[in-house]
């Protein structure tokens, strides 16, 4: 395989790691096949593709979690056979999974040393001090100064992500696989992560970067590989791609159709929040949403956005403040109060907060409206199935029968099932918390279409999002939260990445660093 030499690659020698003719099938279906990849020292390779394109399967073969059915993994030109992640780790390949895989009750230092050789004292016991010191050094190399003896659960998700990277570094990983590392990070934290990646590059570490955020590829990667239907579709230096050509390669359709936003008449104020306060989590939150209007809520993770939404939805009710629906003040003490007032909420964590994974698609969709299809407590299956197939059509859930469990669906389809469930009660106010997180481009555009459609039906819509492009493209107005307070309000003609980013960081634009 004569790959053209890359800027940082070493010509003539075998690449540090390579994948040759890799294929893996589950049952009769090929998850990936004929994959050819080379990883050179100090290079960032982005792998793009929709959910189900075979990215995860490919990297799992590389990390020893799966054994390939065809082809092989090569380390320094020699074919190797990984029976488990243990073997891959020993060969210098580490993976930072999409969802944090840390030990919440153990300290950062302990997390870094699990499954790894520890420094010992002369009598044979572990040298805790040396471990802590080394942990501090590794974290410092990532630019983080934290108490490494404190349990991981006391830190933010962003720090957790860094602990994962530190763990890989502490194992002397030469190839680090990052599966959507920025999915749970805000713009600022993402920028920090990129800084870390640049340091890793400088130290000669190769990185595989899987993401759904197209902008990021151009910022951070040297080469880009696009996968579709289990195959490599395109591969080349990052400069050869544009956002448009990436989307084309991924889904085979042009970019203009990604965001849907029709101009529509905006009506009266339907939903209002006045002085909403919960302890020191958020305070004095005021905003209003009109019918047919999409209000974007931006801000860093931990700024109180989700907590504010959950207070409105009655999961953790506010201490003070007023919630007004249709000019009537409503007292939300529980989720059923919120539902009764016409407020619906799409949670951020669809797996843990939204869906019941072993339940069927139909059962998930009808969960909140089962009473409508029941008489004397008995569910009329016919009505339920009718409702479910109607919803599946409206929200374009594809890929599985309504009677199959939700856990078999791709992330995008799961999200659509959840949206169907949330909208089943025909609410007046819809709050969507990170509706496109971990969802592929195709499903994203469908989620945007659904939001646009809801606006056209005169719903009042609140979209919480960490993705700047998204929130700017679909919102009529944006509010930004910082440390529990609203730090900026923007109308559509005032939208700018800089201004919103500065407000999220709690700065005024002119003082921004």
């Amino acid at each position: 395989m004569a790959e053209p030499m890359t800027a940082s690659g070493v010509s003539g020698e075998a690449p540090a790691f390579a994948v040759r003719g890799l294929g893996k099938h589950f049952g009769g279906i090929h998850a990936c096949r004929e994959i050819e990849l080379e990883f050179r020292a100090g290079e960032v390779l982005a792998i793009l593709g929709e959910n189900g394109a075979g990215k995860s399967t490919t990297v799992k073969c590389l990390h020893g979690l799966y054994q390939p059915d065809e082809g092989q993994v090569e380390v320094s030109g020699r074919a190797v056979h990984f029976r488990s992640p243990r073997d891959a780790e020993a060969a210098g390949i580490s993976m930072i999974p999409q969802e944090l895989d840390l030990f919440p009750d153990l300290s950062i230092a302990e997390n870094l040393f699990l499954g790894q050789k520890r420094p010992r004292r002369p009598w044979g016991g572990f040298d805790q001090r040396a471990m802590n010191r080394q942990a501090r050094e590794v974290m410092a190399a990532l630019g983080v100064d934290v108490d490494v003896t404190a349990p991981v659960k006391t830190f933010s998700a962003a720090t957790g992500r860094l602990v994962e990277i530190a763990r890989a570094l502490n194992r002397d990983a030469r190839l680090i696989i990052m599966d959507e590392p920025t999915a749970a990070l805000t713009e600022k934290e993402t920028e920090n992560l990129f800084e870390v990646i640049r340091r890793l590059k400088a130290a000669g570490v190769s990185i595989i970067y899987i993401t759904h955020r197209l902008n990021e590829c151009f910022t951070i990667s040297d080469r880009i590989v696009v996968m579709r239907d289990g195959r490599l579709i395109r591969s080349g230096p990052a400069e050869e791609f544009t956002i448009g050509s990436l989307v084309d390669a991924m889904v085979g359709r042009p970019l203009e159709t990604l965001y849907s936003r029709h101009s529509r008449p905006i009506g009266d104020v339907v939903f209002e929040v006045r002085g909403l306060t919960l302890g020191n989590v958020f305070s004095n939150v005021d905003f209003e949403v009109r019918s047919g209007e999409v209000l974007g809520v931006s801000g860093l993770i931990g700024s109180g956005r989700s907590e504010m939404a959950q207070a409105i939805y009655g999961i953790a009710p506010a201490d003070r403040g007023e919630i007004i629906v249709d000019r009537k003040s409503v007292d939300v003490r529980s989720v059923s109060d919120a539902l009764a007032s016409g407020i619906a909420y799409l949670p951020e964590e669809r797996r843990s907060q939204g869906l019941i994974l072993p339940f069927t698609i139909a059962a998930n969709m009808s969960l909140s409206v089962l009473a409508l299809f029941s008489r004397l407590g008995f569910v009329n299956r016919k009505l339920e199935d009718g409702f479910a197939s109607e919803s599946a059509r409206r929200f374009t859930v594809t890929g599985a029968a309504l009677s199959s469990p939700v856990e078999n669906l791709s992330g995008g389809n799961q999200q659509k099932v959840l949206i169907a469930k949330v909208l089943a009660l025909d609410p007046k106010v819809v709050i969507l918390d990170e509706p496109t997180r971990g969802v592929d481009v195709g499903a994203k555009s469908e989620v945007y279409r659904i939001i646009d459609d809801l606006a056209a039906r005169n719903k009042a819509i609140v979209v919480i999002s960490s993705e700047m492009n998204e929130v700017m493209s679909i919102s009529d107005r944006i509010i930004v939260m910082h440390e529990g307070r609203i730090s900026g309000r923007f109308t559509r003609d005032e939208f700018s990445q800089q201004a919103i980013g500065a407000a999220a960081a709690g700065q005024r634009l002119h003082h921004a660093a």
Partner: protein
Amino acid sequence: MSRAAILARPELPSLVFLILLVAALSVTTPSFFTIPNLQAVLEQVVVVSIVALAVNQVILSEQIDISTGSLVAVCAFVYGNIALTVGGSWVPLLGALATGAFVGLVNGVLSTYGRVSSIITTMGMLFALRGAVLLAAGAQVLNLPPESRIFGLGEAFGVPISIIVLVVVFALMGVVSRHTVFGRNVYAVGGNDRAARTVGLPLNQVRLMTLVLSGLSCGLAAAVLLGQIGQLQATAATGFELKVIAAVVLGGTSITGGRGSNLAPVVGAVLVGVILNALTLNRVPGIFELFVLGVLILAAVSFDGLRTRLTDRRR
């Protein structure tokens, strides 16, 4: 250790409670804070503590072992019969340890490679072993000669050997827990098993080993128990497994795994011992014992649940 780290110690609440309780009892019940009484409490606590130290590891790794009561009886049966034929204490002890380890191994293999949850495996074992003892020794009443009772009656340097045994087991488990890869892996496996798999830890081996450890501890506990009572009946140590679990959970090890300490089971066992002792000293009828034990377990697990809720809110 920083102040925050001390406050986060899992056994702290029960330790504080224990100290307050001892203080209160010393004032209200004059016969409590006397050397003979405290020594009696400790000796009663030894057997539960030894097994609780091992079951602590089982629970930390997100499993449970409820077979210990019957296993102690089986090991005591083995110990007693070897002692009657061969004599001495060390050969019977080896026999009891081997029996315990073997049963622990079976528990472990079934619970890991056999893919049956440990509560089911060890429940089956609880019944099967008790049945076996009843079949083999239903009518037998075994009286042990004094030279085979050193683990229960013997003294060295004026300290009961049983207490020395406990101290040694405690120190050993402390080292295993803090200074071996196995010990650290136990916390990891119980704390987040998916992450443990990703990191490449040998989950099955770790879980299997904890159950073997628990079996071994039953062998040792049987030697101490039989040494103390001197007479074996087939119904010995019935309900013992619940006292062990109560000690672990009361001590502050989380029943959901991954969180706890080596000190927790001992604190828990002493707490149970002191409470039962207080009942006896204050002439509360023995029939209250089970009731009190049950309430204590419920209180401990509710507290654990409450604490998890409070600490997880931040995430």
